[in-house]
């Protein structure tokens, strides 16, 4: 009986782990999406194309994340550094490391795909 229960627990754990992983991923994605929408999209756009409502009035050129060139090289470090230090007209943001990670997670799973599709 104990063996059966033990096997059942192991089976449940093994079966649930992908779901758990997915849920963690989902949370990360959701957190990143919320942060992106609150912090980034005003300039970079909801679609990541660099055409947010503030892009035109800034008279600058916010980066287009749906361009495949953006996703070359060590892009995650590049994003992290830009969020932390700012670049050109973009100010530095006071985000926690896990918040920055969540934004990168969301960006890579949303705009990287769009960039690949655009090519």
């Amino acid at each position, binding site marked *: 009986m104990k063996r059966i229960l033990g096997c059942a627990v192991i089976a449940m754990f093994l079966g649930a782990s992908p779901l758990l992983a997915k849920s963690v991923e989902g949370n990360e994605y959701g957190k990143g999406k919320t942060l992106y929408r*609150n*912090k980034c999209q005003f300039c970079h756009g*909801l679609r990541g194309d660099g055409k947010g*409502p*503030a892009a035109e009035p800034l008279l600058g050129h916010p980066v287009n994340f749906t361009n495949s060139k953006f996703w070359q090289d060590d892009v995650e470090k590049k994003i992290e550094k830009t969020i932390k230090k*700012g670049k050109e*007209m973009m*100010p*530095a943001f006071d985000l926690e490391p896990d918040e920055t990670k969540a934004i990168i997670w969301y960006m890579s799973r949303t705009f990287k795909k769009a960039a690949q599709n655009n090519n």
Partner: protein
Amino acid sequence: MIRKKLRKLFFLLVVLELLRLLPLNTAQAVPSFARQTGMRCSECHTVFPELTPFGRIFKLGGYVLGKSGKPYEFPPPLAGMAQASYTESKGLTSGVAPFDSIHRATDRINLPQQLSLFYGGRIFDKIGGFVQGTYDGVSNKIFLDMIDIRYSNNTIVWGKNLIYGLSLNNSPTAQDVWNTTPAWGFPFASSGVASTPAAGTIIDGALDRQVGGIGAYVFWNNFIYLEGTVYRTTRSGITKPLGAGTATGQVVDGAAPYWRLALEHRWKNHFLTIGTYGMQADIFPSGNRSGPADSFTDIAFDAQYQYMGTMGAEHMQEQMQMDGGHMAKAGKHIITAHATWIHENQDWKASFPLGNTGNPADFLNTFRMNLNYYHTSRLGDIGGSVGYFSTTGKTDRLLYSSIPVDGSRTGSPNSDGFILETDYRPGEKIKISLQYIIYNKFNGVHSDYDGFGRNASDNNTLYALVWFMF
């Protein structure tokens, strides 16, 4: 001897530390919006309070854009403002307001003219606000000044950005983002003691803090702006707190709708806006709070042109070097032109039967235009404005009666003149202005306008202002 030297040294160190802490163009000690966004004041303002295109978007976005990942701001986004001024015009007294209790309302030196404390920035998540509490040195009173609390969000409609939101405010046009409408229009500051013409439309400041309202707005594709707001009196009810500290002299009967439509177009660094705004309000005659009310309908048109210099990619490198690698500053040359025309129909349904007006109906037309130029350099921003103003309307001998200084011998509301102003901004948060107002006509005519020998030119006003934000 040594003690004395030590004392002097200590005093010197204290002074040096205080000077270091003074918020003169230091990145860490900035007004709340700049602190929240991590951006310079000049991203949102040409020369405050005039807004840049980005400043307009920041305001429409609900003042919530910020660099923190939290849905709130800590410490709270507080800022302050101090204005000190000197006015020269015929008939003013030589005391210092507010310390001179007898002639406070006519003293040349106002020290301060105004002190304000702001809550400016995000309140929570997508809700932000601009809340101003003011001490006025001329009236020696503290009151809740301008309020604009917003909820804002944005989405994509027909492939383009749409900003949408709600605004709770207490002065019609306080919520507007173009500097053509009265609340934020030119002149951006003026004397609190000089005489001003008697006639003015209700949308032109007469209902400031007398009403509170909530409105909805949309801005699509950085092109079309549409807004509708409904106001009610701050004398009582749910909107009463929005008029805290201000006596409700203009009691609005029921709801007063306000509308706004504006179209903005950009080509390169040029921004052109044309628009219309207006409101309808029924207001009880002075002293009444019920019964029949007078009816006012204001319809206005406005236009703004803004040249934002050589800001942007082509100029950024140079500016960043100038600023030691900090955020780019607006371009070297900024030109703005504003114009507005307001027509008001006045239906004296209550005041005429009471004998307060000479006509059953009157009208007013107000026109204002100005041209600003600012040059930004290492030494600060320097510039100036030339403006013209005019109010015309129907003669009404009871409404505009003959009293010394503020009255009209002819019963005419007609006034016009010019404003010349020069501004110098040595740092981001300090502005020094010198303004001269020249009246051609005042309350009807040029000479002996009040029937007591005063001429329009006697009201010409020289006004010097130091305006400090911290």
